[in-house]
């Protein structure tokens, strides 16, 4: 039990509220916070992506709704909320409606297990990394459900491509994460962050011993997220919209939302594993009050994640889509051997002595 928990229980007891209530709500409140924060983050992310793509292609991007187009995605979300939820008559109704729900749950949970600051992790188990791996692969199940239940050939193709893609990229991803676990000697994400504490500024970050791993994981995350150049499951020019062709209104919005939520969660995860998580890149924090330090730590984490998000968007603006064959070949023939090599390097560094990288 961490510091925040005690603060919360103490606060409740001061107002004569039973501890049991506190125990239950302590785990519910965070998810409400995430849900609220998520909306802001995703809406911001969509706007940032559209703005950046605009700049990359010498356009202005959205600039009509609100100052500098800030309210554009809000307006879009509102429009989607107002739209009719069409359920085509030949779909499998139950699975069709279940898929958007299922895609949302892992994304929320994944955001819950990220250590935002030293005392601020909603779900802190000793094997967070494993939990994260499961959650990251989970959306593909709902993508498959959506594709299958839609009873549409394009959706089916999207779903099948998505499955084969995730299957082939899951393995290198696991190996890379394993190398981080070896370096940090822990499966707890807070522990991994703390293992990157260093004497001089950012020298302890795992990106230095594991740069290869960082690149591989970055590529795997692109594939897992179905982002360009791995956007085959929803390749617009081939499969129209892939698995969510038949979805409309709020259900489509949920797919869209969870896609960006997952993008952000994965960026956070990558920042935690390789870029020192919430640690300050200067080795020290600017604020001295313990409460403000939490915010500063969260700020650093968000900044690092934003850089990764920027990279992902940059890649989308630059690269064409891979061919489906190359995609799988690239994973099994290039990424997998490299990730195993990366694991060996990590093991050697670990046992040759930590002094090498600190």
């Amino acid at each position, binding site marked *: 039990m961490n510091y925040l928990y005690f603060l919360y229980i103490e606060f409740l007891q001061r107002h004569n509220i039973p501890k049991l209530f506190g125990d239950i709500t302590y785990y519910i409140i965070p998810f409400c916070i995430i849900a609220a924060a998520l909306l802001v983050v995703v809406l911001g992310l969509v706007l940032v992506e559209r703005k950046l793509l605009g700049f990359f*292609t010498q356009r202005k991007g959205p600039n009509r709704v609100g100052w500098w187009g800030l309210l554009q995605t809000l307006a879009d979300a509102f429009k989607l909320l107002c739209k009719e939820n069409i359920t085509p008559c030949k779909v499998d109704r139950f699975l069709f409606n279940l898929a958007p729900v299922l895609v949302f749950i892992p994304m929320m949970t994944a955001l819950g297990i990220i250590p935002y600051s030293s005392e601020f992790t909603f779900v802190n188990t000793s094997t967070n990394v494993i939990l994260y791996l499961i959650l990251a692969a989970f959306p593909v199940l709902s993508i498959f459900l959506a594709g299958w239940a839609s009873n549409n050939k394009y959706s089916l193709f999207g779903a099948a491509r998505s499955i084969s893609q995730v299957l082939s990229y899951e393995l290198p991803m696991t190996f890379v994460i394993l190398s981080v676990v070896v370096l940090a000697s822990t499966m707890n994400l807070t522990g991994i962050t703390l293992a990157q504490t260093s004497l001089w500024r950012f020298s302890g970050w795992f990106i230095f011993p594991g740069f290869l791993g960082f690149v591989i994981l970055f590529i795997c995350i692109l594939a897992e997220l179905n982002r360009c150049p791995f956007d085959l499951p929803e390749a617009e020019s081939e499969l129209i919209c892939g698995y969510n062709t038949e979805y409309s209104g709020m259900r489509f919005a949920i797919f869209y939302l969870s896609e960006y939520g997952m993008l952000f969660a994965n960026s956070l995860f990558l920042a935690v594993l390789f870029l020192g998580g919430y640690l300050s890149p200067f080795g020290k924090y600017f604020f001295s009050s313990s409460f403000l330090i939490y915010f500063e730590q969260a700020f650093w984490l968000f900044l690092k994640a934003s850089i990764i998000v920027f990279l992902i968007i940059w890649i989308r603006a630059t690269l064409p889509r891979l*061919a*489906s064959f190359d995609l799988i070949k690239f994973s099994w023939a290039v990424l997998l051997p490299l990730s195993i090599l990366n694991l060996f390097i990590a093991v050697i560094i670990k046992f040759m002595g930590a002094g090498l990288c600190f």
Partner: protein
Amino acid sequence: MTITTLKLNLGPQHPSTHGVLRLLLELDGEKILSCEPDIGYLHRGMEKMAEKLSYIQYLPTVDRIDYLAGFFYSELLCRIVEKALGIEIPEKVRVIRVLLLELNRISSHLLWIGAFLMDLGAVSPFFYAFRDREMILRYFEKLTGQRMMYNYFVFGGVRRDIDFLEEVENIISVVSEKLNDYDKIITENPIFLRRTLNKGILDKETALNYSITGVNLRASGVDFDYRFQDCLYKGFDIGTVVLEKGDAFTRYQARTLEIKESIKIIRQALDYLKKSAKLEQKLVNPVNLKLPEGDYYADIEAPRGLASCFVRSLGEKEPYRLKWRTGSYYSVNLLRKLLVGEFLNDAIAISGSLDIILPEVDK
């Protein structure tokens, strides 16, 4: 166990069919077993319409046959009338027409580059190509009053004297500079090479057998460019691009190189026009225009292959029969053969590389 194949209906409303082409594909997994193109969703009855309209009434509509290269089709109709009446167009009109045709060719190829890369999943080149094409369209708008349906060539000349030549100079200098940028973002991109190299190989014999003309034919190694025989291009130093391999990448390369050749032709036209005097032309009076009895035929090298127009006149105000030949129409027919055995995402790249435009197919 019985093996069932999947019938996929690609189009007519599909993001990558560039209009309303419908391909009935039979798939085994993602592999295409057979392809049956179905056209006609954009049919406007251009040939039937001609039989009811006088020549000058018909002239504005022919730009719509290919909305990306409208000048070529109005040039064809003008040429038919000029041929039938035995009119020699003035030298300056000829050069103006060459200049505008080549500019139009560049704008058409630029759009194709953007759309092709969009098919391959790259977003940015689409906007870059459109940005450069926009300059050309702005110039056309300034000159003719229209961005796409120009109606600028008339029987015996052009509607008004050419102007804003310094803008053309600016366009060609910017476009030739930007072509190098395209090389950097497109041609040097390994994913692009993987997607296009050795994909959809079209050999010489097949190309000729399927009546493929234009850039697609030249990318397959046949040195056939109608501009060399065209009297419109008399006196111009024309370079043509003949490449050997005939795959999707070669077709891309041939188009970018052809833009460079077109720029050279425009330079020559500009040199002439800058020194030339004010335009003096004698236009045909379109009221009561009747072509003498007989068959008339005219060809032109359009961006999407050889385009030609056939007119049979019985000495009436309207043609008795008017027939268009368009390049894309035969490229669509080629898809039956070219797509078989390819994977779905390669198929999109291949059909994109042929530069099919649907209004030209459906007429």
